């Protein structure tokens, strides 16, 4: 799918785009800056992208390329001023902090470090998410998700007594329990061994299919690229490439020549 349906930038810097209910995230001419005045440094340059529902996209790029910033913008973690960024149909550009918090409640976050409270059991950590929005029995919901993730026997364990892979699965359960339509994951497998990492991404892939949720994942882990429908490469804050999985394999296989070479 190509992402070139851009419309002209209006005078106040925001961009008007038509809503498309099939798209989880729509981005047009997004610019982002750190700092102010003399120290102002542009981190993202004119990014335009669409992510349809149910897609798993991996965002790669060298460190400092802006991929984490990109993820945090989609996650409604920073206020935005230029371009357009719609998450589940809601425009984030121009939102204040309080409105952003509302958007975040519909997003599942998974971090490299699991960030679980050591003082809470696996179940309680997941319940913290249910308490934000949920109703009904929060424990039942938490246990259901943990069971889905193969942690049925571990619901009342504290993080200290869980393995790295188990902790990450608790964190994933916490991200999933409210059945978000968008999941943002930052290096979810970096702290895990090969098998645990594989288990975790397989789970995520399965969930994306079953619940038709969109997953955006920043990773350096080449072992898990195969789960992605699409791979986006950022370099120095600019969109370097946006390829489907099959394309990516072809272009990055040294046995094949880069098709672009023939275009010249």
């Amino acid at each position, binding site marked *: 799918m190509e992402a070139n349906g851009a419309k002209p930038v209006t005078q106040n810097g925001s961009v008007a785009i038509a809503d498309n209910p099939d798209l989880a995230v729509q981005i047009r001419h997004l610019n982002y800056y750190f700092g102010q005045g003399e120290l102002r440094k542009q981190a993202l340059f004119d990014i335009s992208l669409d992510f349809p529902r149910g897609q798993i996209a991996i965002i790669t790029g060298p460190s400092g390329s802006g991929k984490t910033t990109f993820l945090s913008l989609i996650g409604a*973690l920073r206020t935005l001023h230029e371009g357009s960024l719609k998450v589940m149909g809601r425009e984030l550009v121009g939102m204040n902090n309080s409105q952003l918090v509302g958007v975040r409640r519909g997003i599942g976050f998974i971090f490299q470090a699991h960030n679980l409270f050591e003082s809470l059991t696996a179940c309680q950590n997941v319940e913290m998410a249910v308490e934000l929005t949920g109703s009904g029995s929060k424990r039942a919901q938490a246990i259901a998700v943990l069971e889905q993730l193969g942690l049925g026997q571990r619901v009342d364990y504290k993080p200290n007594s869980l393995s790295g892979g188990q902790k990450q699965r608790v964190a994933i359960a916490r991200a999933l329990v409210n059945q978000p339509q968008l999941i943002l994951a930052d290096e979810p497998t970096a702290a895990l061994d090969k098998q645990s990492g594989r288990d975790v991404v397989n789970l995520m892939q399965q969930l994306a299919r079953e619940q038709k949720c969109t997953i955006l994942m920043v990773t350096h882990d080449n072992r898990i690229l195969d789960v992605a429908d699409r791979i986006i490469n950022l370099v120095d804050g600019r969109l370097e490439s946006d390829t489907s999985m099959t394309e990516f394999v072809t272009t990055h296989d040294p046995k094949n020549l880069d098709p672009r070479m023939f275009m010249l």
Partner: protein
Amino acid sequence: MSLLKRTPLAWLNLTHDRRRLLTSLGGVAFAVLLMFMFNGFKNALYDSQVQLLQLLNADIIITNTQKYNMFVPEPFARRRLYQARAFEGVEDAYPLYINTANWKNAETKATRPVRVLAFNPQDPVLRLPEVQTQLAKLQAPETVLIDLKSRPELGPITAGVETELGDRHVRVVGNYSLGTDFASGNGNLIMSDQNYLRYFAQVDPEDEERDLSTVDVGLVKIAENADPERIAAILSENLPKDVKVITQEGFVQQELTYWQENTNIGFVFSLLTTMAFIVGIILVYQILYTDVSDHWAEYATLKAMGYRNFFLLGVVLQEATILSILGFIPGFCISVLLYNATANATGLLMQMTTDRALSTLVATFIMCLISGAIAVRKVQATDPAEVFG
């Protein structure tokens, strides 16, 4: 979702690391202890001054107009008491004689001044049951009851001890428990008015001679249901101006006011209590700050998930409240023990009243809230975007 059904994050965070919790509670408890001790000393110094006054079995007190505190040795004419008895509503009026004499330590032979309280054994002057039951013993010549809480410098004071009081033979016939104050010097003796004459009617030419015609403190009992304020006002108006008539409550307050205005006790101990309060703030802040630092990533994750600052503020303030209550309990218990130890070691009147315990609890609570409010700024400043990378 109701508050009760929420995961008790504050409680679980605090209790997760047992060792740290114990240290934290230790810190709060010691801050509480400091406040209790300094406040306790202040109250003890004040309370001690009026403990005898509070035991006087009277509704109204008559003294010499010049006697603005118990140190002032100005007596008044006993006939004022007879005059007082004539007023309606007055049931009885009886005299208390107070003087100072040198007590000879039976062992070391060193002398120390003691305060002598003398009255007619028929008059119920003191609300001390121990004294009431032993009054008959005082009928014998040269006998006294002596306070068990007298200073140790007085030497042996048990019943049967014979020594000298003002160079005259004296025999201890019993004990009671009262305590010393600044005016009583080393202790209080109780004797009959007849014995009082023996010791003070003929003294050195340099000392003032005393008999029973002048009284130090006059005790007035009024009829049941009568209003002490009103009768005191009537007596005050109708008796000659050489005496002052006040309710017993007013008499106690007058003594307290004197010590409050004429000593730095209040200043010294209020300053120390304030400093203990600040130390408590620092201690609790340190505990909460460490908790927030340690769980920074988790708090940031909660914010990323959509929890508002208000929620995190609530967690920190809850932790502060839990600390204040859990720390107060051991602090209070140790304080009670130390109060007793201090009372035994010094004879100071260390009293733990409900009021004082409650006000310290409130102070502890405020102390923890202030710390919580400072510590929470760090959570509020937490940028959820930073959890990425």
